[in-house]
């Protein structure tokens, strides 16, 4: 089967160059997926980079072991935003607490995996590839997009927003991922001649990077074209805020989530979006730094949910957070915490069955010299996001089934 794009491309190359190009330069993107998942549901993944401290995010304030372990940076029962008599949210998560009270937030406690690693990079790899053995080479979302969605010719199906590189979670050779750092710069600058020349430089690039170059440019070209037709239809209907205490710069996550809302509202092809906020590796001054970061998260996520509701899109979207690990139970001497293991995940959105899920790990029966024993396998959460929310085949992505966690 010759796809529309194959035809266009080969036509341009043959007519333009006037020389013979090897006819089969079979690039992965030309292998169209037959039938894609057709529903209108969207999954937004929010990565908290660096290892967010779960215990100061979802705080077991009533447990004496918590106060003992966190004499300086602990959050007490008066400060925490209580969701029951023993658990409360970080004081800066007021917007997410309000959504929780409305039944739109599922908090899955104690999420992790067996034999955890305390390395950022091994931890990232495990979560990105949904594989504690780190043998998989495709990102879990990339694998899902490759096998269950028709991304071919629909470059705005998997999107990474507010960042410039393809996140490993979305990365798979057969998948087009639109990576859009900023909508303002996502275009070919320099006039009409450049608009024609730029993509024409990347049609049949030779060499080991050829497919990747051509796929990147082709994704950009088609995404720009799609955005040009519909992009102006979006007006934000919530205040995404502009300033934050973190590094004295603007709230980049809010900017990224506003862009996410724009794409969801204007582009019906959008299915999976990735956004990221870094800086959670709080070995030092966690009390102030994590507080500022969580404030950014709270402002950005609250505005995003409010915007989607006002746009009448709330029923289409679920957002889930993750981080490569939680942090050590006992604080260190720098008002910080070192690398740890299990931590809570937030799943947020109008379709979500809100509540506290899973079991808070014991703060006294610890593993690996002071770390939490996980109670929920992270793939149980992925499974529900894929199977119950996106209505796709979770077994094909995760290579098995895991105990049920009901999120929607």
């Amino acid at each position: 089967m010759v796809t529309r794009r194959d035809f266009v491309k080969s036509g341009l190359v043959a007519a333009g160059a006037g020389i013979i190009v090897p006819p089969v330069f079979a690039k992965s993107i030309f292998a169209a997926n037959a039938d894609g998942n057709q529903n209108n549901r969207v999954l937004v993944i929010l990565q908290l980079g660096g290892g967010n401290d779960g215990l100061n995010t979802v705080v077991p304030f009533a447990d004496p072991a918590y106060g003992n372990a966190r004499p300086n940076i602990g959050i007490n029962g008066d400060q925490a935003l209580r969701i029951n008599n023993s658990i409360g949210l970080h004081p800066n998560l007021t917007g997410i607490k309000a959504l929780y009270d409305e039944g739109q937030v599922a908090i899955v406690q104690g999420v992790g995996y067996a034999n955890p690693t305390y390395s950022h990079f091994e931890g990232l790899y495990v979560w990105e590839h949904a594989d504690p053995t780190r043998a998989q080479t495709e990102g879990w979302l990339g694998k899902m997009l490759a096998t269950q969605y028709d991304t071919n010719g629909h470059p705005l199906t998997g999107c990474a927003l507010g960042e410039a590189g393809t996140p490993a979670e979305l990365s798979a050779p057969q998948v087009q991922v639109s990576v859009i750092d900023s909508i303002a710069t996502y275009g070919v600058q320099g006039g009409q001649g450049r608009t024609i020349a730029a993509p024409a430089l990347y049609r049949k690039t030779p060499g080991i990077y050829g497919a990747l170059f051509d796929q990147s440019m082709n994704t950009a070209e088609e995404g720009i074209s799609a955005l040009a037709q519909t992009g102006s239809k979006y007006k934000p209907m919530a205040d995404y805020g502009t300033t934050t205490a973190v590094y004295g710069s603007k709230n980049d996550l809010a900017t990224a989530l506003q862009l996410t809302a724009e794409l969801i509202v204007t582009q019906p092809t959008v299915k999976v979006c990735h956004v990221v906020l870094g800086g959670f590796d709080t070995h030092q001054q966690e009390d102030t730094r994590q507080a500022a970061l969580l404030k950014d998260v709270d402002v950005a996520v609250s505005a995003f949910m409010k915007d989607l509701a006002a746009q009448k899109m709330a029923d289409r979207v679920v957002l889930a957070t993750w981080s490569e690990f939680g942090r050590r139970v006992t604080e260190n001497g720098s008002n910080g915490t070192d690398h740890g293991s299990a931590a809570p995940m937030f799943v947020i959105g109008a379709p979500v069955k809100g509540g506290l899920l899973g079991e808070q790990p014991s703060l006294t029966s610890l593993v690996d010299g002071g770390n939490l024993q996980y109670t929920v396998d992270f793939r149980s959460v992925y499974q529900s996001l894929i199977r119950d929310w996106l209505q796709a085949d979770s077994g094909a992505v995760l290579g098995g089934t895991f105990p049920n966690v009901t999120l929607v």
Partner: protein
Amino acid sequence: VSNAKLRLTRRQAIGIAAGGAVGAAGLATLGGHLLGSKSTLAAGSGTSWSSPLGNARGLAAHLLRRAGFGYTSSDLDSAARMKYSDLVDSVVNQSAQSLPAPSNLSSYTAVSQAWLQHMATTSAQFPERMTLFWHGHLTSDYRKAAQLPFVYFQNKLYREEGTSDLRTLLNKTTTDPLMMSYLDLTQSSAAAPNENYSRELMELFTLGVGNYSETDVREGARALSGLRIVIYDKSGNRVPNPKRGTGSNAIQQYYAAISQLAQSGAVWKGVLVPKQHDQGSKTYLGKTGNLAPTDVIDTILAQDACAPFITKAALTYFAVPAPSDSMVKTIADQFRSSNYDIKTLMRAIFTSSDFTDQSNYRSLVRSPADYVVAAMRAIGNTNLAAAALKAAPAMDQILYDPPTVAGWPQNGAWLSSSSVLARLNFATSAVTATSSYPSTSDAIATQLDNVVGPDMANIYNTSGSDGDRWYAILGSPEFQLK
């Protein structure tokens, strides 16, 4: 050579070779690492670049692109006349040219711009390239450190010690104020050692996962505890740390005071404060005693895993995306037996078959910093650092702002819809900001080795002006590779 429009010949334009059985096997090996799936590329690759590495000029250009940031045609002419091993020696033995402190050390823009400009203008290209290599390998983030003047100090350190020996480099990095701030050594004490630097020093900087235990991380943190940043004036006398006030412009005043001290020749470094240092016995990587930071470095360098880890990182950065274990071992043995002499390491890499083999032509993707500097040097306009900084976020590389403590992923990871667009848009900025263009036909020969694919040939041949032809050159996939 006239600057008139040159029609690329069919022979130049067909600067790609059909991939036969041997080529396809080679691609599968390299590609498997890059795209994470061997099957994809093995099934699809039909063409590869026609390699000019078999001739002296092609090989010299290959070296100058990778050991530096690019060259002019006269640079290449003289390099190509030298015996290759002599050329490697002359490159590796270059002495660094210092980068004078920018007047405003508290401006991220000023410091980064000065560095990019220096990369583009210094004739000591190799030490500058090594500065960028170490910035990625022993990386630091200016935002987390929140001490902007420290960025310049670390940059200076990697320029001065980046081609000396690994022991000196690691000891000075451990007491570098930016690193100490970034990886949380500044408050680590006997009572509460901080594990961050201890872990990343072994995991990412020297040994790799699997070559230490969690106990080593904790014991190393004890041995590294008690380092505090101290300022000395140029005569070696201790100077009090400027106090940070609480007013609205307190941070600016604080940075101004630090800048002023730096301009006067003061230096910042970590010193071991005995009462903050854990004086007890530690057992670290099998060695027991009252270990201090220098013992940590010595113990690491005594591990069999260290030389191969650094060698593999350097081979991956400079030579081939996925170096073979045997090549790593051969070069690591030379590196270690030279007492970790970095020039020995780099000479071995540049003369290795992993570097010079014909199949390694265009096997690496220029990083964004590499690309913008190479573009400046090729088009002969070194005043593009401001435009380069502006383009950096969408290209996915902001200097001193690595995505993680592992620095930047390389090669295929540089390529996304955002970054490819941003590179082309930088080409437009470079062309627009340049008034007098060097010969484009010379650039095809010098910068692209006359090895040009059909897409590039098409756009080049149909371009109506030198500006458009330079856009095709700088924007082409050919120029993104090295």
